[in-house]
């Protein structure tokens, strides 16, 4: 643990946490407004999961927070300052992003790719340093990809590849990490693997994590804070047990359900009601 405290960039709980929020945010593509008049505040040092139906604007919101989209109104604030008014490199030292389908240059090796996460910490004349090497080593070790360091990423399975992408984000050593559907293309074992990894990161380094996710039950289990979105606005925000009720699920996903407790974690589990196989219960 001593090493963690020695490296200030790793920002243990001692460092003042960076705060991410949004005010009156309007986001869209061209004339199409997806998110409008949205205000929110991300809990520092917690895992926040954004859930909602397809097209509800959760990925758009994440892109807006990661400054991939410029808001036509309102602002995304990092420690009270607009992320669009701050130099991109300064933001990148604090705020990291893993996009939904990142593309790697053909033939790139794991070590090279993870090393590119060091960009914001390097300058025009100060290039690769011992600090960079240490950050890359830590990221590879933490994600269990050290053995793959010399291998091209093209050869890897989906689960391994996702670990490598997370390693790249870790090498960036940001206090905040946004992930757009990091589990969508993975099988169940690898979904759990990735979510456990992110939880470790949060618990051990105090990293604030925001995840966009489809699986409501895993979201409930792993989230400290759940944000439910529908039609580009926030419907509910809070602990999963408070947010997830049959009413919220109906409002957000347009489906009847029974909410029970996860036998392992005690968090809410949503059992959806359909027209078949539901013991005659068809509440719609």
């Amino acid at each position, binding site marked *: 643990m001593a090493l963690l405290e020695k490296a200030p960039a790793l920002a243990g709980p001692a460092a003042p946490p960076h705060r991410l929020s949004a005010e009156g945010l309007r986001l869209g593509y061209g004339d199409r407004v997806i998110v409008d008049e949205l205000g929110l505040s991300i809990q520092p040092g917690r895992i926040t999961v954004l859930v909602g139906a397809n097209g509800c604007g959760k990925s758009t919101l994440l892109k807006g927070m*990661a400054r991939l989209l410029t808001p036509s109104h309102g602002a995304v604030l990092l420690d009270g300052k607009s992320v669009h008014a701050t130099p991109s490199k*300064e933001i990148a030292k604090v705020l990291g*992003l893993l996009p939904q389908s990142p593309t790697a240059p053909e033939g790139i090796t794991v070590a090279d790719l993870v090393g590119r996460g060091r*960009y914001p910490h390097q300058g025009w004349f100060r290039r690769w340093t011992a600090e960079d090497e240490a950050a*890359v080593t830590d990221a590879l*070790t933490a994600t269990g990809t050290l053995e793959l*360091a010399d291998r091209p990423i093209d050869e890897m399975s989906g689960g391994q590849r996702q670990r490598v992408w997370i390693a790249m984000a870790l090498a960036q050593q940001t206090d905040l990490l946004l992930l757009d559907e990091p589990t969508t293309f993975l099988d169940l074992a690898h979904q759990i693997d990735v979510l456990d990894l992110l939880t470790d990161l949060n618990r051990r380094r105090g990293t604030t994590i925001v995840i966009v996710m489809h699986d409501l039950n895993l979201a409930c289990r792993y989230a400290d804070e759940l944000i439910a979105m529908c039609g580009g606005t926030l419907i509910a925000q809070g602990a999963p047990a408070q947010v997830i009720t049959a009413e919220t699920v109906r409002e957000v996903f347009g489906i009847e359900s029974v909410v029970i407790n996860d036998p392992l974690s005690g968090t809410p589990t949503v059992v959806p009601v359909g027209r078949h196989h539901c013991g005659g219960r068809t509440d719609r």
Partner: protein
Amino acid sequence: MTATDLRPPAERAAAEPDRPARGRAAARAAVTGVRRRRARRTLLVCLVLVVLIVVVLVASMITGDVPLTVGQVWYALTGRGTAGTNFIVYQLRLPRIETGLLTGACFGVAGAIFQSLVRNPLASPDIIGVSYGASAGGVVAILVLGWSGFALSGAALVGGLAVAAAIYLLAWRDGISGYRFVLIGIGLSAVLASVINYAITRAQVFEAQSALVWLTGSLNGASVDQFATLLPPAAVLLVAALVARRWLSGLQLGDELAVATGVPVERARLVLILIGVALAAVATAAVGPIGFVAFVAGPIARRLTRGTGDALVAPALVGALVVTAADYAGQHLLPVTLPVGVITPLIGAPYLLWLLITSGKTRFGGS
């Protein structure tokens, strides 16, 4: 020792029972080793390229109508030559070699920048029309305006930039798609070819002849004065390219990750395109559009170094080697003397065909 591992040691050991937990120092040594092996390979490739270039240079210095010995060349270069050898070395052979080296490096780097930026091996300036634009600017400057020297470079630059701007505007649709970029470039090349042909048909026979030689790509016009025109802009641009290289590495990850890691995407792309266009234009103004050098240099360098295409020193060396070696071959190895621009397509065209035949949808349709 494993403090920065997110998993506690016990959990780690349980997950990997057959392997003892490795220390942080060992992990770090492994990462350093991986990086050093890569760096060593790149260095080795570059050294071999430099040796090959030196071999070609020596051969070019001693071969010609008046053969010289290595000793005579050495004496001339160290200021102890006779008037005759001095003239041959300084006025005839050295400018030609220097011009070949520098333009080759410019074409190589320009090609590597474009191919990496557009993520498509077809996106080199000689395929997508940037070199054609520079040629059209140059031909108009030579035939219509009677320009030479820096003015000719300027005209070529304007032509190249105009084409690059046109491609950028026409291909832009919420970002640049590699495939559109290349197709629009090829279309513009056809338009510019007709501009060039028009200018030539309107010119006097003698002028048209010299313009045609220039259009083929030739080091025959290389002189001390011409090299003095080429050196300053080429040197500045090559240094600028090496400095901007880290942007290229960032942009290779795609716009989203580039933004996420703090690359100023729009500015970086604009600057890199400008550097690439200017390199191609400056070299074209000096020696004409020597075909396929920009096209093959990057991929050859990439294959040799097993890199991802964001390296620029190796493509510069490959470009320099290709131009000087092709010029040597055209001058001395064939029964007839041919300009370098006739030789390089003999290397480049088969590669283009191979690329077109073997490339699957992934390589061409890729963003």
